[in-house]
């Protein structure tokens, strides 16, 4: 592995932490990524030297803060190859972004009898907003199902994508199955049917190069906290002509053009969607996170994570009674592996692993309809990042064996 990935615990001090007297093996990167010092320092610097509210003052500090805030918009646009910084709306999170789209754009374009097409592998954040929209508008929510190998059934998608479909909302990478869906192809199909496509890139944007123009996504959403930035900052990319049509959903300072007692008019996008004081520090951190990722390079990060997955996958499949969900191919897992261990409940497994310093998630991963389809209540999920090491993975596999043995002993 290239040197770039050595000694990353200098940048990520949490990786040196002990958990229950064992070295931390952090394998819940799909829930949230760790935050490098470079990001924290950039934010700290901002508050210690240039903190002021944005878009408000004509004084030097305010101008510096505003320039920094808007400069990151250019960075984000470049990071996902958006046509213009004006197509980048800052939000709180992927969830906030998806709700913005479902409320503002959804209310605008979806009417009674229309269909909204999502997939059965969606995170609740890319599911309930559409379920609610369908209820509000008396539209129909349809689900694309899985193939036998638990990847997306493209035949089913083609079958369900019709001229009744107003909108397709789909995750680029599943947070449970780890599979990456062929967004570009799906966007093309959607557009052939005059449907719009909303892409949930929460699990992809930190792990592969995402190019909104190449994908031809109408909207694309992600969260800073899953890409090395802090919590509380997210992005909603929208095609400029769509953002232009959309009404704001929150009202207040910053987003207005002019206000009278009886009426108000809005600024242009993206500002009309950013009511009130935004998460300025979060934006500054997002810029630093993009710098960090870009310095390594998204292609190298992707290759590194593929390598780690390829290393781990056969070790897991070799564990007796361990069931992996999703594809049988390591290369289809983008660093995310959900599994169960015999009849053991995922909570019990996760507690055992936690005793050994290994932090994985156990639960429904905010994907209950998918759990029902997989025929389980919950799973254990390990998810990697480029800063994980081979030793992490070895400890993880060893810990699984120990947990298995522990419960085999106990249940005798």
């Amino acid at each position, binding site marked *: 592995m290239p040197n770039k990935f050595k000694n990353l615990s200098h940048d990520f001090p949490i990786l040196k932490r002990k958990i*229950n007297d*064992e070295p931390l093996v952090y394998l819940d990167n799909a829930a949230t990524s760790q935050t490098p010092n470079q990001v924290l320092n950039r934010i700290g610097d901002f508050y210690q030297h240039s903190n002021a509210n944005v878009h408000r003052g004509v004084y030097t500090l305010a101008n510096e803060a505003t320039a920094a805030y808007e400069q990151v918009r250019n960075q984000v646009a470049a990071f996902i190859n958006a046509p213009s910084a004006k197509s980048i709306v800052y939000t709180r999170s992927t969830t906030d972004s998806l709700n913005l789209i479902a409320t503002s754009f959804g209310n605008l374009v979806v009417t009674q009898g229309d269909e909204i097409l999502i997939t059965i592998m969606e995170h609740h954040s890319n599911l309930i907003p559409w379920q609610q929209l369908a209820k509000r508008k008396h539209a129909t929510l349809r689900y694309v199902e899985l193939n036998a190998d638990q990847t997306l059934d493209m035949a089913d998608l083609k079958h369900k994508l019709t001229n009744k479909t107003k909108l397709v909302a789909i995750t680029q990478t599943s947070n449970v199955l780890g599979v990456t869906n062929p967004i570009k192809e799906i966007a093309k199909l959607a557009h052939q049917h005059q449907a719009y496509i909303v892409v949930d890139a929460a699990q992809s944007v930190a792990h592969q190069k995402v190019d909104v123009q190449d994908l031809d996504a109408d909207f694309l959403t992600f969260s800073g906290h899953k890409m090395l930035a802090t919590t509380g900052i997210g992005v909603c990319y929208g095609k400029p002509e769509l953002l232009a049509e959309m009404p704001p959903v929150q009202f207040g300072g910053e987003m207005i053009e002019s206000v009278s007692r009886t009426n108000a008019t809005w600024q242009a996008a993206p500002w009309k969607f950013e009511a009130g004081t935004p998460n300025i520090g979060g934006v500054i951190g997002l810029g630093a996170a993009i710098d960090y990722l870009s310095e390594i390079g998204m292609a190298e990060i992707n290759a590194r994570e593929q390598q780690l997955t390829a290393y781990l996958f056969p070790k897991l499949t070799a564990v007796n009674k361990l069931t992996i969900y999703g594809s049988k191919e390591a290369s289809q897992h983008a660093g995310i592996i959900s599994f169960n261990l015999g009849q053991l*409940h*995922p*909570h*019990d497994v996760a*507690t*055992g692993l*936690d*005793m*050994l*310093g290994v932090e994985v998630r*156990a*639960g*429904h991963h905010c994907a*209950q309809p998918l*759990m029902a389809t997989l025929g389980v*209540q*919950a799973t254990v999920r390990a998810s990697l990042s480029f800063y994980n090491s081979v030793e992490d993975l070895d*400890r993880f596999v*060893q*810990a699984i064996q*120990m*947990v298995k043995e*522990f*419960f085999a002993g*106990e*249940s005798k």
Partner: protein
Amino acid sequence: MSLNKLNQLYMAVVMDHASHPHHKLALPDATTSVELHNVSCGDDIRAFILMKDDKVQQVSFTGNGCTISQASASMMTDALAGLTKTEAVAGCEAFFQLVMGKQISTKAKAWLGDAEILGSVAEFPARIKCATLAWHAAQEALEGGN
């Protein structure tokens, strides 16, 4: 690397209750029943309470979950049956105190029976929700659930 500490949580009696839970069935003639979800894993427990006069005559549960939640539900059905309504509500309260590592009275310990052993959950704070799910459902049912 060792899992010694886990023995505190998964003691024989806990594993026993989990693999052979007591009163795991629906009570069709229950006075009240309440279903609660553990929102992080999707586990659910429904507690059924059959009252006679002011006494808890029968307690049962349905639903799936981890070792801790199943064992705890099983112990709960043993513990609450036979108590008065006031005692049973107080018993649930005492259980919540116990698993948060607080001292509880001798009287409360008597009510809890086997369940006292789940005091060890206090060392595993992430599992308190698993341990208390059934008891929260029971308490709500006692207080007049639907």
